[in-house]
């Protein structure tokens, strides 16, 4: 069975240099993939990205990331990405990563995603240009994420965004801010093609466990939610049975 380690919202800066590495080495020993669901930095600077590269780079298993809203804050997201990629970290934005473990192909589709809210309680593509821009960005984010997930032909499929696809994992956050924490469009995109696991971050006061309407297991791996360095998820045989 494929085992993945997942974490998010690590918000690294120089003050945390070296803190995470020992735990990640344990994660690399136990899992075949390490997933990091965005907000790797505090302000999205290259200097902070260098700390992330030191912590996450050079591990013996693939490290797959998406960026989060904090990683965009200084408008240096391209340089942040390049810094991470320079040490072999994979950064996904409407893209996929595929590998093979013991004859089982595993794919990850990732994107930052965006907010808009959830069915019946979300922003609409109507009115002022600012509101339409907000809504259209959410739609575009879900579209590129969904297209990436749909392109995976692997036996196992994992979905990863920073923003949440469901309300389940936001419980604990004030419901008034849920439209800024996630989007039902991400769940809709994932349910259209299916996945074995969907991980996200962003909602620090949320809860770990959730599920899409279509039955995909969703896990909020933001570190304040996990209260442990990482989560380990083993992808069971399809249909269960053991």
């Amino acid at each position, binding site marked *: 069975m494929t085992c993945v380690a997942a974490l998010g919202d690590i918000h690294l800066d120089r003050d945390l240099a070296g803190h995470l590495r020992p735990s990640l080495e344990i994660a690399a020993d*136990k899992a075949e993939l390490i997933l990091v669901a965005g907000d790797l930095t505090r302000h999205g600077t290259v200097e902070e990205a260098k700390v992330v590269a030191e912590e996450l780079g050079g591990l013996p298993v693939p490290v797959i990331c998406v960026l989060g809203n904090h990683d965009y804050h200084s408008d240096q997201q391209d340089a942040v990405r390049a810094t991470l990629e320079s040490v072999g970290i994979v950064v996904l934005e409407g893209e996929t990563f595929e590998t093979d473990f013991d004859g089982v192909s595993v794919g990850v589709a990732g994107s930052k995603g965006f907010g808009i809210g959830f069915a019946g309680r979300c922003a609409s593509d109507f009115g002022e240009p600012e509101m339409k821009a907000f809504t259209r960005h959410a739609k575009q984010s879900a579209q590129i994420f969904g297209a990436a997930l749909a392109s995976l032909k692997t036996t196992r499929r994992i979905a990863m965004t920073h923003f949440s696809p469901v309300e389940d994992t936001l419980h604990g956050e004030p419901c008034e801010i849920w439209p800024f924490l996630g989007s039902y469009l991400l769940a809709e995109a994932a349910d259209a093609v299916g996945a074995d696991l969907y991980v996200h971050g962003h909602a620090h006061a949320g809860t770990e466990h959730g599920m899409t309407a279509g039955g995909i297991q969703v896990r909020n791996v933001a570190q304040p939610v996990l209260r442990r360095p990482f989560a380990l998820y083993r992808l069971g045989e399809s249909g269960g049975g053991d």
Partner: protein
Amino acid sequence: MTHEPNPGEDVYLAKAIEEAIGGDERTAELGVHVDVRGGRVFLHGMVATQQRKDAISSVAAEHAPNHQLVNDVSVNDPGATATGTQPAEETLR
């Protein structure tokens, strides 16, 4: 210090402090909840280090110099693993 109750003002002050904690480069913490009651500023949430918690106090104090601060933000080092414990593992079906 004598505090004259003004609930409406307290609500806006709380939001201003919350905005400052999110926007100030010393903190950049979006997950800190601020409540102003009875002349005191209460801070709740979770950060990774004691230094980050202290920075939140500094920013809040600058925006509410006449209020007493109650910083209940907890510190959770992202790398802390209890010695001898194994990470919990979940099998998904």
